[in-house]
């Protein structure tokens, strides 16, 4: 009885493992395609072109000091689209997301420290 249960469990596990491997999320050294599709990428491209149109149109309006913030926000959204969909980060192992977080954090810390110096001198 116990033996049967165990072997049943083992089959379940192997099926799960095969499924996980088929989608290639975490394990294995051989990369496997993540449901390749043309449609999603074309939609993302249309989104990126729309955001480009918006940022150019907004630049024509005089927003004063807000102009820089708005333009950078749109650029940030655009790059998130590129990173998540074109660079497949959305489907990637967690470790890549942690890496990119550390990278951006390093950049922001250096930027802030630079401005500590600048704001007190100018």
């Amino acid at each position, binding site marked *: 009885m116990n033996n049967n249960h165990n072997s049943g469990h083992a089959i379940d596990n*192997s*099926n799960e493992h*095969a499924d996980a491997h088929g989608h290639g999320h975490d394990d*294995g*050294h*051989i*990369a496997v*395609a993540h449901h*390749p*599709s*043309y449609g999603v*990428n*074309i939609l*993302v*491209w249309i989104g*990126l*072109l729309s955001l*480009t149109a918006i*940022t*150019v149109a907004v*630049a024509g309006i005089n927003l004063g000091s807000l*102009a*820089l913030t708005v*333009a*950078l926000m*749109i*650029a940030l959204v*655009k*790059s998130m689209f*590129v*990173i998540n*969909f*074109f*660079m*497949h980060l959305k489907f990637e*192992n967690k*470790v*890549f997301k942690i*890496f*990119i977080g550390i*990278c951006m954090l*390093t*950049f922001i810390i*250096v*930027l802030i420290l*630079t*401005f500590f110096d*600048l*704001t007190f001198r*100018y």
Partner: protein
Amino acid sequence: MSYNTDTSNQEIQEMVIHRDDFGSKMGMWLFLFTEILLFGGLFILYAGYRYIYPEGFAAAATELDVLLGTINTIILLTSSLTVVLAIVALQKNNKKLSLFFLWVTVICGLVFLVNKYFEWGAKFHHGIYPKGPALQEMSEGEVMYFGLYYVMTGLHGLHIVIGLAFIGFVMWQIHKDVQTSTNFQKLENSGLYWHLVDIIWIFLFPLFYLIH
């Protein structure tokens, strides 16, 4: 039972050809982070000088052609799309379509460089170059702006050239069936590089062309 034979076949394959796609991808991402910090340093320099010389930067930015910048943005976004579509096509085992998409990417990259050539050429023509007559009349802020403009768009242009060479190499490998529907990591890595170059342009475009 059938699963077991599958695994052993895959294991044998792995042992024979020594492939590590995960490691290859991670190596590429780590390299891209050093690229981000390289350009990041220049973006911090831009931020610092923009803070010190707001008027000079605003005046100099009006000299750039927004239309040309917008066209180049559209070209780069489209070239990024075609790289992704090339990966999808190869994964679906459509070698011809994959190569077609990569050709579109290469042509987009070349058109981008030609536009840059005309853009820089027009600036030189107007005397905006180191020790150029127009540049010597400008304020310190404007000189800093054009210094950063040439360094950042120049370094970005160099990355386009390197990206094109990388994609060309991968195209040759696809042509020779070295990169296939089950072995496409080099194509993905060249795509990752190309998208990074695209992201850098996504930030360069508003900072240099749009904000006056």
